[in-house]
């Protein structure tokens, strides 16, 4: 018969907790990497398609905005994995490296968010200017 002490020893031991957290970290990191790679692949396909149709610069900006959103989402997953790692970081060296990576990812997340907002405004202004001028490219279906 399994007692509470045995259960605590086997399921909640430091070793098993470490392996569970390691597995979770790998899963969350893989999800983040998958999102970033998918976003990059999609953006590449759209860039090729836009070039084939000889589109204008602001349409490239729209594709870049889409890629930026995928990058931000992937970064959120990577930050989540950094947080999970702090649960089982064994040494000061590991924690220092983790802090550097987390700081870069957090700063990047902040700047990407700001950049996306600024480019969105720029794109809206260009689209308004185009519609005000009666853009000939938009008139053709």
């Amino acid at each position, binding site marked *: 018969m399994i007692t509470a002490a045995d259960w605590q020893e086997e399921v909640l031991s430091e070793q098993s907790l470490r392996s569970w957290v390691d597995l979770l970290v790998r899963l969350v*990191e893989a999800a983040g*990497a998958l999102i*970033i*790679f998918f*976003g990059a692949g999609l953006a590449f396909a759209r860039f090729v398609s836009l070039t084939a149709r000889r589109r204008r610069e602001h349409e*490239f900006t729209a594709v*870049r905005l889409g890629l930026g959103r995928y*990058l931000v989402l992937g970064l959120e997953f990577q930050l989540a994995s950094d947080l999970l790692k702090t649960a089982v970081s064994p040494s000061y060296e590991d924690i220092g490296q983790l802090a550097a*990576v987390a700081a*870069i990812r957090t700063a990047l997340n902040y700047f990407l968010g700001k950049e996306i907002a600024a480019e969105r405004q720029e794109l809206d202004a260009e689209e308004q200017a185009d519609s005000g001028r009666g853009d000939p490219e938009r008139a053709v279906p």
Partner: protein
Amino acid sequence: MSGVLQTAALLCTVGGLISAALALAATRRPLAALRVLLDLLLAAGLLRLTGDPDLRALTTLAAVVLLRQLVSAGLRQDHRIAAGTEP
């Protein structure tokens, strides 16, 4: 996993170079092409940062982020001057 990530990062870098060349051909604006290249290089850098990154990966990504900020600031300034809103 690191082998797969390295390959994915390499694909992103190659994709960035091709996309930048295509953007340059389509728009004839080098800075717009540079923006496209930096976006995909950033994706490659983020993929390299997955797992256990070394100092080189960290500094490379920091350099790309800094360059992105500089190019974006330059382009925005350029855009404001072209729009006639800058004194």
